[in-house]
């Protein structure tokens, strides 16, 4: 067991270096955006956007275009559509039935593109459950540009976003453009979901978008510290997951979800113990 040797071995393969670079970029963005997503209780939207990315990527591959454009195109378009839907009317149950129908339809469309592109069925698993093989230099550049832009916008709008997320009524009264902020955040979420899908696959985005953020909210109530913890957990989970996936026969999707779920369980356990001791000393 020689950790230094193992890391050196990993870094000697260009595909692995690209995978680690892409994973780091994606994890930083997913950790930061995911924290706000959990705060705003929009994780269902995040999942829907990621699922919408699947037919985008499958369709792009079928047409011979870089899958990254399919992911970003469909996720951002999906975010614009969700943002354009006016304030919800009708029951909550009907709304989730509609979201479920949209998700199933998106998955079915993705499956159609995959089966139209003969011989690509093996790529289906990579699209749905992630892969560490085949991340190109171009893809890393696209991810870096998209992720950088995403983080800049997030930092610029962090203060109004936090305000709107915590108390929309007061924020509106103070003149914050609530609709604009909500719409802009959904687009950021679309970019984050598109990036995350390329590492974890469309079905497992929750591992990076939700689990690190949920871990952070169990550990601290401060938004600034929370974002940092969320980003750190996401990056750690991704890098360790990718490294184990390289040395083991089991795919990255399993390792990243298991590690993220483990972090969440640990944080939940810590919270429970901390609360109990506080009650006892009080």
């Amino acid at each position, binding site marked *: 067991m020689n950790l230094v040797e193992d890391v050196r071995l990993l870094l000697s393969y260009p595909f692995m270096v690209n995978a680690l670079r892409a994973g780091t970029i994606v994890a930083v963005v997913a950790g930061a955006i995911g924290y706000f997503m959990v705060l705003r*209780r929009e994780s269902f939207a995040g999942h829907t956007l990621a699922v919408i990315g699947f037919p985008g990527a499958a369709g792009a591959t079928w047409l011979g275009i870089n899958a990254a454009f399919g992911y970003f195109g469909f996720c951002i378009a999906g975010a614009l559509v969700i943002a354009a839907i006016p304030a919800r009317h009708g029951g909550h149950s009907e709304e989730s039935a509609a979201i*479920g*129908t949209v998700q*199933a339809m998106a998955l*079915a469309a993705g499956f*159609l593109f995959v089966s139209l592109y003969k011989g690509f069925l093996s790529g289906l698993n990579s699209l749905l459950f992630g892969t560490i093989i085949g991340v190109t230099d171009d893809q890393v550049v696209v991810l870096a540009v998209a992720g950088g832009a995403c983080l800049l916008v997030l930092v610029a709008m962090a203060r109004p976003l936090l305000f709107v997320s915590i108390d929309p009524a007061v924020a509106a009264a103070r003149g914050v453009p609530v609709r604009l902020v909500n719409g802009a955040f959904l687009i950021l979420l679309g970019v984050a979901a598109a990036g995350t899908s390329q590492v974890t696959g469309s079905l497992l985005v929750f591992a990076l978008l939700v689990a690190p953020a949920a871990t952070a909210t169990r550990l601290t109530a401060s938004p600034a510290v929370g974002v940092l913890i969320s980003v750190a957990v996401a990056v750690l989970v991704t890098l360790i997951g990718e490294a184990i996936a390289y040395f083991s026969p089991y795919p990255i999707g399993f390792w990243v979800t*298991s590690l993220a779920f483990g972090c969440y369980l640990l944080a939940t356990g810590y919270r429970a113990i901390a609360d109990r001791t506080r009650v006892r000393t009080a």
Partner: protein
Amino acid sequence: MIAMFSHPFIQHAFLAGTAIALLSGLVGYFVVLRGQVFAGDALSHVAYAGALAALAAGVDLRLGLFAATIAVGVALGLLGGRGVADDVVIGTVFAWVLGLGVFFLALYTAHGSTGNGAANVNVLFGSIFGISFGAAVVAALIAAGLIAVLLMIARPLLFASIDPVVAAARGVPVRLLGPLFLGIVGASAAEASQAVGALLLFGLLAAPAAAAQRLTDRPWPALALSGGLAVGAMWLGLWVSYVVPQLPPSFAIMSVAAAEYALAAIRPRLLATHAHRVDDTP
């Protein structure tokens, strides 16, 4: 049109598909009415992990499918009384369950010998044109039995769904009905995933039911309509997929179901463009 029924695989598909669709439509109506659409989402993840666990263990796929979905359905029903867990917990847990499914897939691929990729695609997106006569008969019989049980409990279930407090006061065993119903939903999910796959069963449960609820407020006609719309989606989808072989059956079925819901949702607006009607019953 008649000629297509000379193929045995079409006969098997229609036999299994009709029974499964009717079951999904009827069960789906209560799922949407009771606001338990999230259970459908959860069960689709569990169905995938269960089926692949069975494959990895070398037993019949359906054994794992039914065992996992019924167990989780009943468990959700038993937990349901104590407040529903929030979407963050559900999302994190079920991303991990899917990750486990990927783990079993890798186990199966490592130890199995033939047809691995196809088995995975069949679990995810169904293979109704590949169903054998024996499997079709078993699926139809199970569906018939579940429909019979559902119709037997339909009256108290409807009462308990619309007003649980009054129903409990009138002596309806509300606590027993919840887990029993979700057990039926679990078994229906296992049935539906044989037709349209684990990822799309959610759509077959939700779309016809949501469309039926849009079209009528009265419970019994809505229940019948939901079953009818699901069967219609199945028949039309199977026919389209037969005529246009490039379209996978699960995609065609899902498209028809989604179209039904979309038409039902925009119907009031279509009617409104005609001059005002005398009455506005939907």
